[in-house]
């Protein structure tokens, strides 16, 4: 390709995209210079992913122009994007888990009549690449046996092997420990110094500040700011993203722990294949405290939460709530709810709501057989409606329309309704998984305040989150999980991101419980 040295590596002009009535991208224009790391930040639904999918050929823009190294290119498929030197690392890796690293990288670009020829040539090329960029990966290892950080490295190598000069990374740190994230950033800096262009799509302000040269802020499909990173601050970026001033940290007084409400003893949970995902976990939960469970995604937190809520049967151990033995008595999710154990699930769309239902039907999920909602044999639709209206106004759910399908609400408003539903049942213990996943900054602030208020009202809260900042900001006590075990406990006053991060990586110690 004939390159214009002065031209930006990637330039978008007036990209416009509608999905039916939704205007996902509104005349978006920006450019990223060669040899730079360019951050793209915005709330969920701001149009970041749509924009990146257009650049990578997964969607087609209705209008606008994509220029690579100063030349207009027509991109209508990922093949076109790869040919133009654009590579993308998706949030969920697209790897064949039981193939080797080498086979995965070569997949789709095998070359040669026989597979062995292509693999041999690829091996030489990859060893060179890996040396140049400091991206060493064991080429013959099976992908599923690699840690997540290395799997991500395989994805990056895959893009580079196909000749990418522009690399798009979509929320790359979601599955990494803070230390792994720092390694990733070092790797990106190395790529930058070799003249590659990196587009980093994220909603984490910390990452933008740590590694990018310039940052573009998106809101409601349009660009609302483009600045050099050194000239801005997290607060300013957050305000641009939301469109108003926000509080990044919730103020809270010291906890006043009371009586023990929930006791977990030697809990073991196995998955369907019989592999232990939670290995003999014990802890207690007191009234008036928030206990945070920190850990990299996939270290048993989800299984622990589901076992506590009665969704998954533990293979060993006991859970005590208000003098009842939940495991021995075989109490299911419904019975536990009646004992005052409410649960905001981690994956809202998979479990917390029924996407095809209206808001009012979702507002009774799990509580649909309460006498308050019955009218003889029939459901009392008026009571259901009134209950939903009450929850919507108390939790500021917008739009306040109980008949609207839940899927039409933003993530933050869905979460507010789920939270309202669970808190409204006046629980003694609230289990909360990823309270702000897919939730916009404005709603995060609201949700955090509600959780602190609940604590101050004498409830016990168990908070599971992969956002370390969230745990540090909310929890009074932090339990760190790694490989299915609680590897340490730390009071929030003593906790720092570094200390907790080390424990997350499986290094025991630091005031072990």
């Amino acid at each position, binding site marked *: 390709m004939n390159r214009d040295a002065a031209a930006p590596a990637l330039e978008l002009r007036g990209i416009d995209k509608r999905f039916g009535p939704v205007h996902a991208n509104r005349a978006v224009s920006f450019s990223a210079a060669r040899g730079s790391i360019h951050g793209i930040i915005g709330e969920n639904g701001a149009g970041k992913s749509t924009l990146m999918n257009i650049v990578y050929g997964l969607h087609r823009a209705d209008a606008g122009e994509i220029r690579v190294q100063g030349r207009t290119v027509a991109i209508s498929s990922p093949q076109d994007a790869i040919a133009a030197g654009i590579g993308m690392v998706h949030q969920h890796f697209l790897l064949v888990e039981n193939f080797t690293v080498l086979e995965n990288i070569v997949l789709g670009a095998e070359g040669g009549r026989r597979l062995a020829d292509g693999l041999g040539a690829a091996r030489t090329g990859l060893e060179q690449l890996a040396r140049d960029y400091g991206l060493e990966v064991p080429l013959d290892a099976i992908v599923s046996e690699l840690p997540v950080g290395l799997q991500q490295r395989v994805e990056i190598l895959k893009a580079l092997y196909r000749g990418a000069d522009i690399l798009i990374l979509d929320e790359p740190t979601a599955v990494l420990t803070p230390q792994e994230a720092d390694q990733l950033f070092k790797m990106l800096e190395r790529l930058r110094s070799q003249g590659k262009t990196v587009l980093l799509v994220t909603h984490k302000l910390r990452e933008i500040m740590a590694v990018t040269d310039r940052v573009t802020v998106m809101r409601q499909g349009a660009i609302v700011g483009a600045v050099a990173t050194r000239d801005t601050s997290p607060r300013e970026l957050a305000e641009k993203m939301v469109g108003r001033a926000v509080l990044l940290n919730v103020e809270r007084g010291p906890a006043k722990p009371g009586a023990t409400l929930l006791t977990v003893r030697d809990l073991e949970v196995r998955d369907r294949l019989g592999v232990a995902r939670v290995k003999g976990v014990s802890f207690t939960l007191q009234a008036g405290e928030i206990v945070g469970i920190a850990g990299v995604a996939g270290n048993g937190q989800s299984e622990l939460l589901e076992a506590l809520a009665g969704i998954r049967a533990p293979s060993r151990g006991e859970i005590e709530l208000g003098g009842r033995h939940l495991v021995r008595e075989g109490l299911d999710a419904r019975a536990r709810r009646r004992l005052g154990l409410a649960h905001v699930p981690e994956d809202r769309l998979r479990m917390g709501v029924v996407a095809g239902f209206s808001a009012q039907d979702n507002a009774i*999920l799990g509580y649909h*057989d309460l006498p308050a909602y019955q009218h003889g044999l029939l459901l009392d639709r008026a009571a259901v409606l009134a209950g939903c209206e009450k929850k919507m106004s108390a939790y500021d759910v917008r739009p306040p329309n109980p008949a609207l399908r839940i899927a039409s609400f933003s993530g933050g408003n869905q979460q507010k309704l789920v939270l309202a539903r669970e808190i409204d049942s006046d629980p003694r213990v609230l289990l909360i998984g990823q309270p702000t996943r897919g939730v916009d900054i404005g709603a995060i602030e609201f949700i955090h305040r509600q959780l602190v208020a609940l604590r101050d009202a004498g409830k016990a809260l168990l908070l599971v989150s992969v956002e370390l900042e969230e745990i540090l900001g909310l929890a009074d006590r932090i339990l760190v999980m790694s490989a299915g075990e609680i590897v340490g406990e730390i009071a929030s006053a003593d906790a720092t991101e570094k200390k907790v991060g080390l424990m997350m990586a499986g290094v025991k110690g630091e005031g072990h419980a």
Partner: protein
Amino acid sequence: MSTSAKLPRWAELFLLPAINLLVALLLAGVVIKAMGESPWAALKLMTGGAFGSQESIGYTLYYATNFIFTGLAVAVAYHAGLFNIGAEGQAYIGGLGVGLVCLWLGAWPFWLVLPLAILAGAVFGAAWAFIPAWLQARRGSHIVITTIMFNFIAAAVMTWLLVNVLIKPGQQSPESREFAPNAFMPALHELLAKVGITFTSTPLNLAFVLALLAAVLVWLLVWRTRWGYAMRVAGLNPAAAVYAGIHPPRVTIWAMLLSGALAGSLGLNELMGSQHRILLDFPGGAGFVGIAVALMGRNHPLGIFLAAVLFGALTQGGSQLSFDMPRINRDMVVVIQGLVILSCGALENIFRSPLAALLAKFSQRKDEA
């Protein structure tokens, strides 16, 4: 973005089915033209044959009654996330229950026979649906496969029973003796005559009213009770059901029992109302038509009623057509029905996205104006 485009409710319920029907008729018209007949004349013959006289309306609604029962059966299972292909077999075995009550207790007064026949049809149909339901809930055997298989088993069992056990002594054709007159479902023209309305004699009978009643009850159950709520949660999102303390395997079993009971009620119309005996293959494919009816009726009782009347009209108008246009035989009528099923079922998503885009464009223009 989701893959299936969202349509406004009115378009989803009425416009889209109407477009699908229109396309089916156009395709059928092409086929009829190719056979050398006039599509227009054929359409007139069919609509006249289905709705042109009291007699034709009576027959259309009589066929529709079967389709309402089987359509509701498929829809109830659908709301629990199950695809019940076995309505045919459940109707067949359910009819056995209805028939046995009528054969054994036919001498009892009708108002005693009727509730017992309803109960027997429901219990036999539900029992036939229970086995696949149990296999699905406890063993994970896929219900589509098992219910199809159970259609064949039902057919074999019924053939054996009719040939060896129930056959009227001293005759060749495999059917039972006629029910006692007390066990006949009153024909609608007889009931109407009692209140002074004259209506031509047709097989349309009280079972039609029972079918409408069943439709209302299904609507109440699915959308207005906590059981229906639990069923729909389990059908739409099993993980959310478990989260809410609903047990999807239990829902599977209850929904299939209800589905089988509804399908089993077909015998009330076909045997008690018209044939007055148990005979070979009396459901005549109504169980399969029920799938198309539920699909076209969007699994809603009102839609199912309308779709059942449409398919009743196709059945009745179709026989008129094959009678008056010798070049078009019964098989051709089945082809036309097949085209309707094809365009309403398999092809419905072809028109969905363009229609959604078109409507979005219109509403956008309205917003901008």
